[in-house]
């Protein structure tokens, strides 16, 4: 049983190490690389497309995560109420998360189509706009469209996880709070939110991680276009490494994501610690 665990670790850490090493070489597909030190990073630092992709990634992650959190929390609170068909609704809500992202992205592609978009159709019928919106053709519109699709997929995850957290909060706290004269808002602010904080920390860490390293949605919807406006670090590193053949460069770009991820993991770690401390436990 011990060997199983060791083999596992090797299988995971080896690629990670190899990736870091590749980042320092000029490996191409089908040809081994030589050690070239920091050259890849220097090149990427001066590369306008890379800088744009870093900006895009951060913008994408921040905006999508904040909205996902807001909507997710709201949906969780709604689902936590006494509802008919509660289990059924909860099951349906998770569907966007279950279905392969690449496939639901195709549906969004069609919804965002420049000539036959259903959104444009409805808006012209209502007289809001005169001509069809070119959702994926304009840089900022494309960024926002992609973010909307990401939010669509991410909200159910956040909502269901937070709902699980909400259900662990004992109703007697609310009874006590309402006996003390707390309004609904005060109950939410001083009972729900503090008790939910640890779970929020963890869920949002996951959400940020998945958003930051997102690949499928962008690849299907825009392939990084128009004018690289939606290239994320993950899609750019794929494009440089696989169709472009520059494995070393792509690996360097992928490795450059690690510091951001470490920050997110540390955040989650402290979230966990706080939870243990709240429950009167020792440090984990």
């Amino acid at each position, binding site marked *: 049983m011990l060997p199983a665990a060791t083999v*596992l670790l090797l299988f995971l*850490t080896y690629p990670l190490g190899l990736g870091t090493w590749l980042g320092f070489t000029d490996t191409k597909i*089908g040809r081994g690389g030589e050690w070239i030190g920091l050259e890849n990073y220097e090149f990427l630092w001066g590369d306008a497309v890379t800088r744009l992709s870093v900006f895009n990634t951060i913008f994408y992650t921040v905006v999508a995560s904040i909205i996902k959190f807001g909507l997710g929390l709201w949906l969780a609170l709604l689902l936590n109420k006494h*509802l008919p068909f509660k289990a059924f609704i909860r099951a349906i809500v998770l569907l966007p998360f279950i279905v*392969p992202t690449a496939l639901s992205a195709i549906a969004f592609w069609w919804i965002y189509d420049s000539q036959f978009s259903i959104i444009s159709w409805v808006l012209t019928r209502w007289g809001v706009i005169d001509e069809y919106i070119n959702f994926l053709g304009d840089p900022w519109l494309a960024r926002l469209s992609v973010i909307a699709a990401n939010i669509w997929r991410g909200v159910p995850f956040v909502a269901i*996880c937070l709902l699980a957290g909400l259900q662990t909060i004992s109703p007697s706290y609310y*009874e006590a709070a309402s006996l003390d004269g707390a309004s609904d808002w005060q109950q939410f602010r001083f009972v729900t939110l503090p008790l939910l904080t640890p779970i929020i920390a963890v869920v949002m860490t996951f959400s940020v991680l998945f958003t930051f390293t997102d690949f499928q949605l962008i690849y299907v919807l825009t392939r990084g276009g128009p004018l690289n406006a939606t290239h994320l670090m993950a899609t750019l590193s794929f494009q440089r490494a696989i169709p472009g053949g520059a494995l070393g460069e792509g690996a360097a770009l992928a490795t450059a994501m690690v510091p951001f991820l470490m920050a997110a993991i540390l955040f989650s770690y402290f979230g966990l610690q706080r939870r243990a401390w709240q429950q009167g436990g020792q440090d984990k």
Partner: protein
Amino acid sequence: MSDTERSETPTSAATTDSQGMKYLESTPRRLVTVYLPLAVFLFVLLFPFYWMTITAFKPNEELLSREGNPFWVINPTLAHIKKLLFDTAYPDWLWNTILVSVVSTLLSLFCSVLAAYAIERLRFRGSRYVGMSIFLAYLVPPSILFIPLAAIIFKFQLFDTRLALILTYPTFLIPFCTWLLMGYFRSIPFELEECALIDGASRLQILVKIILPLSVPGLISAGIFAFTLSWNEFIYALTFVSSSEVKTVPVGVITELVEGDVYHWGALMAGALFGSLPVAILYSFFVEHYVSGMTGAVKE
């Protein structure tokens, strides 16, 4: 939300109802604060699926016209589905996806059971750190690992085979399953194992005859979750496979059904629909397990 939901009723009526004081809210208020937003949420979340389904059955003339009501099909057609099943390699992709998902899920479950049991119960030196690093490994996303893994795949000459996918999927499945199963194993009382040890059972016997039967719900959760994860996997399948016969559904639909500037929307949507249905159906049978798997992984 704060304004609309603020309760006007005096807070004197103590209640033992587990729903708290919510019954004091009037029906019109609930309609605005609960049902309306919920309906909007459900509409937005489900609309793409409806749209996918309706597009798959629309004939091309209806798809490419701006007249009429696009929300309904006037002359439903099976042409797109026929094209998908007989003119493309779609059945192959579907078979590949099923094969790869099932095998890699089983493989991961097997490894995870051994690993999780070792970490939880053997209590070797540093097991806590191993547990922690499993969690960290779970957080390492595929989009960082695919380049080095591609290099390894080339080296082992596994490129363009199903085996490449079967061997790489466990890299993200095993940490997840192990983490989940560790939580389950922890909840099984130690005394059961001690009894078995006294009765002369070996570690392996304990695992197979005592621990595994008790952790069936955990195994199902982990299995379902791992299966959907590998069904959804995209970047590895895109990178490690290039011939049509070994592609999985998501990759095949994206790369093969899009030809130049002419998009076969009907066939694309039908492909997306049939690629989504199996996981959706499987999920609908095991909703509770799936949810507990997902939230369990987050809560631990």
